[in-house]
């Protein structure tokens, strides 16, 4: 898996946006030529999906051309969008075969901007099963119930991708704190049951931690068909300047250039090497002695959250000779 950034411009301003640490002044949109290089990278890496993100990727002025090129290269197209897309982008996406296109629509809790909400619903209706709603939890008092009628009303895929907002290393975005995870887990379990009652299943994004769910919780989630998972790996986000990141939250950790011979496996291997020492720890102080972590079942949560626990202390001590 690798995500290709094609736009730095966004028409939303989500408090939890994880690109906060990696804004690139002077780079607005990916040129077509560079997109060709990105597709070559996917080919070299044996990756069959072109996953396009931003900013808001559909704002790219040549978005339909990019999609066409990706399709011509035999790629299945995955778009990460806020749903507020221009008509040209929507027309292009709704023309794609359902099995060759997934549009992950990030839906925020309605905040009074009725016009934006209505536009998003209209887009999802037209995309039908190509659309898959995603919801990012960035505060413990989240209320996801509005998503269920939204799924029914729009005819989108009956799956809700749930993400826990993770911090950028700078901490400059809104995110959940580990001591809020358990309260969030309780609400997720309740929501999974409600969702199952309407034929909707939950799908977990990266960064969840096994121990925030009790065994009884897990049984309920499984009965509700939820696709639970605890993972944190180098996603590989390729930015507009041709640098590869472990993932946006870890942008400050460093990047690798997308060289003509680069492939995803080698890049991932380098990032794993860079981050290996931090993997001894996890988001909780109990992680390093946790059996779920020791067995490899759980990586200990999001690495950005883990790294933010570490600090440097510039102590000095005078020692007798």
């Amino acid at each position, binding site marked *: 898996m690798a995500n290709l950034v094609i736009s730095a411009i966004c028409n939303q301003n989500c408090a939890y946006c994880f690109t906060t640490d990696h804004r690139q002044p002077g780079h607005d949109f990916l040129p077509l030529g560079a997109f060709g290089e990105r597709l070559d990278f996917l080919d070299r890496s044996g990756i069959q999906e072109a996953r396009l993100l931003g900013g808001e990727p559909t704002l790219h002025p040549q978005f339909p051309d990019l999609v066409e090129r990706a399709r011509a290269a035999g790629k299945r197209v995955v778009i990460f969008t806020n749903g507020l897309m221009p008509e040209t982008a929507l027309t292009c996406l709704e023309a794609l075969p359902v099995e060759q296109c997934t549009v992950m629509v990030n839906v925020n809790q309605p905040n009074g901007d009725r016009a934006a909400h209505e536009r998003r619903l209209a887009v999802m209706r037209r995309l039908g099963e190509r659309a898959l709603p995603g919801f990012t939890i960035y505060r413990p008092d989240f209320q996801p119930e509005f998503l269920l009628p939204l799924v029914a009303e729009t005819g989108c895929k009956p799956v809700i991708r749930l993400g826990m907002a993770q911090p950028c290393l700078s901490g400059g975005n809104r995110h959940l704190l580990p001591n809020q995870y358990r309260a969030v887990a309780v609400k997720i379990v309740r929501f999974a049951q409600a969702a199952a009652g309407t034929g909707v299943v939950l799908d977990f994004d990266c960064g969840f931690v096994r121990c925030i769910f009790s065994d009884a919780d897990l049984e309920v989630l499984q009965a509700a068909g939820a696709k639970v998972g605890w993972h944190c790996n180098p996603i590989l986000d390729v930015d507009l300047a041709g640098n590869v990141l472990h993932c946006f939250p870890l942008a400050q950790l460093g990047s690798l250039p997308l060289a003509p011979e680069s492939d995803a496996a080698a890049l991932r291997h380098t990032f794993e*090497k*860079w981050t*290996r*020492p*931090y993997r*001894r*720890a996890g988001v909780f*102080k*109990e*992680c*390093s*002695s946790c059996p779920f972590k020791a067995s490899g079942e759980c990586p200990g949560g999001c690495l950005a959250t883990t790294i933010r*626990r*570490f*600090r*440097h*202390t*510039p*102590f*000095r*001590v*005078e*020692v*007798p*000779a």
Partner: protein
Amino acid sequence: MTLYRCAPAIVWVKDVGQTLLVAQERGQWWALRGVEATIWDLLTLHYSFEQIVGFLTELLGLSGEEVMQRLLAVIRRWEQAGIVCPLEGEGSG
């Protein structure tokens, strides 16, 4: 006297039962437990060498001399590992 400082690349976190030290650029990590973890704690609280000796003497029930030798050995080991480094030209002795 030699003045030591925490190596600039070292970051650390206190977990249940251990303190983890990481030097990311070198790809190294260390898990400190027991007395070593306590020494690290006290250093990060900016205790002086003498204060650490005093604290450990009470904690371990050993003589001051024994504790001092043990503490010196730990610091030498950490110096070899690159966890602490001498501040050249800034010692007082």
